């Protein structure tokens, strides 16, 4: 066997193996999605969006309470986490740069990004839930904010650093003060990237269950008071899916389906922004 023949054989083996692995990976994803769609669509109905939770056996039951609770908890977390993350990212890229403090913050936030979310839930339980004496929507939002923060902070930092320094210099050369260079020129240049970071950050926390179990807990009925325990799609899904009642399990599928579609569309939207930016 010549060297060339050997090379061709090895090349083919590697190609087949890597293609196979890719197909297996994508296969599982499609499998998950198809099971979700089949069971989820079957469980969908208008009453899901108009009715609150009910004891098992009741016909008029839905997920309104969980949908609204989810939107409020994630909404508050986004409202707090996004500006905090963008400001912190701005500090890293534009002010801290390569300083010790900035590098430390980068390292810590990288570690936080991979921290198990249940640990963050336990932390918020200790500092918020225990002193308050009860679970609350606020505590859930705080936990999600902590999880979201490092994602938005690091993408903002990365995206701002991608803006060429000559663009900043050009703005300074026209006599612009630093804050105007950042807000009027650098932010504009990194707009698509920062938006993508926000979407991915929101998508990440929207699917969290563990930190909410410790913090916002659950409520089978509609509650819009953030001071009280609050339903969320994820915890509701967990409770319903593990219950022995068939109608609750069906609602669990519906919750899983709605949640997945929401996160999937956030991710696709994020990719579209990146593609649009690259295409320019």
């Amino acid at each position: 066997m010549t060297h060339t023949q050997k090379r061709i054989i090895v090349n083919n083996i590697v190609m087949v193996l890597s293609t196979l692995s890719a197909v297996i990976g994508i296969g599982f994803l499609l499998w998950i999605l198809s099971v979700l769609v089949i069971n989820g669509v079957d469980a969908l109905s208008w009453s899901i969006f108009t009715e609150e939770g009910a004891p098992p056996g009741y016909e008029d039951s839905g997920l309104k309470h969980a949908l609204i609770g989810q939107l409020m908890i994630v909404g508050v977390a986004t409202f707090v986490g996004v500006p905090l993350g963008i400001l912190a990212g701005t500090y890293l890229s534009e002010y801290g740069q390569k300083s010790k403090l900035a590098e430390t913050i980068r390292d810590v936030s990288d570690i936080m990004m991979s921290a198990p979310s249940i640990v963050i839930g336990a932390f918020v339980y200790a500092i918020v839930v225990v002193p308050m004496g009860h679970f609350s929507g606020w505590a859930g939002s705080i936990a999600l904010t902590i999880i979201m923060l490092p994602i938005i902070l690091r993408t903002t930092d990365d995206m701002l650093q991608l803006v060429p320094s000559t663009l900043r210099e050009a703005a300074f050369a026209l006599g612009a003060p630093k804050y105007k260079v950042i807000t009027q020129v650098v932010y504009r240049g990194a707009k698509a990237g920062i938006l993508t970071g926000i979407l991915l950050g929101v998508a990440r926390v929207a699917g969290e269950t563990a930190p909410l179990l410790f913090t916002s807990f659950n409520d089978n009925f509609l509650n819009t008071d953030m001071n009280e325990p609050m339903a969320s799609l994820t915890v509701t899904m967990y409770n319903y899916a593990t219950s022995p009642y068939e109608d609750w399990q069906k609602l669990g599928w519906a919750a899983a389906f709605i949640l997945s579609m929401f996160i999937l569309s956030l991710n696709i939207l994020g990719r579209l922004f990146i593609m649009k930016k690259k295409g320019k």
Partner: protein
Amino acid sequence: MATIIDITEEKALEVRDFEFTYASADEPSIKKLDMPIAKNSITALIGPSGCGKTTLLRAFNRMHDLYPGNEYAGEIIFKDRNILTPNEDLINLRIQIGMIFQKPTAFPMSIFDNVAYGMKLQGIKNRTELNDRVEKALKDAAIWKEVKDRLKHDANGLSGGQQQRLCIARAVAVEPEVLLFDEPTSALDPISTAGIEELIVELRERVSIIIVTHNMQQAARVSDYTGFMYLGELIELGKTEELFVTPKEKLTEEYITGKFG
């Protein structure tokens, strides 16, 4: 050892005993440099890579202050004051001494907003005044005809040469007294380069111009005075035609005849 001619006309800037040290370096990149810059004329700075010509250029609008730890010594006199003092108002200085960069630096906004940016920074909000001055600046930069129908379009849709002229329009719009060009055509094709060179020559009537260039033909074509720098020193400053035809320094002669660099 340096040969620096006496400039008889009024001076726009005067460099005296100037030294510059980068934050990361032990040795100064520019050593004890003296140089007059004539008003309403074009001064070209030539020299091999690393000779300090861009470093000197970026001292005139204190661009080095954007990065911590850089150190100036000596004086650069502009309008009867030393602009290297710590209490110099850099915003005001950079309005009076504008800069054009090597790569076009169109901001991610519309063509109109790009040109209006400097004026808006100065607090000009009157719509008619902005419109008039943007139009005038774009005409001055010889790009008005090409963009007048798409002022609201994204400036990044323009070609490289058009973007560079847009940047010149943006710099001219704030009516500076000095314009610094840092190899403004090195990223452009020959036709765009010719256009920019023509523009630079026309601008001389209103502003004093300093241009750093790698291209000796460009220096010979556009400038009135040429300074040759080598290893952080100004070796020779003379009238452009004299410096290129009868250089006084041996180093200058060797550089312009292509013996090194």
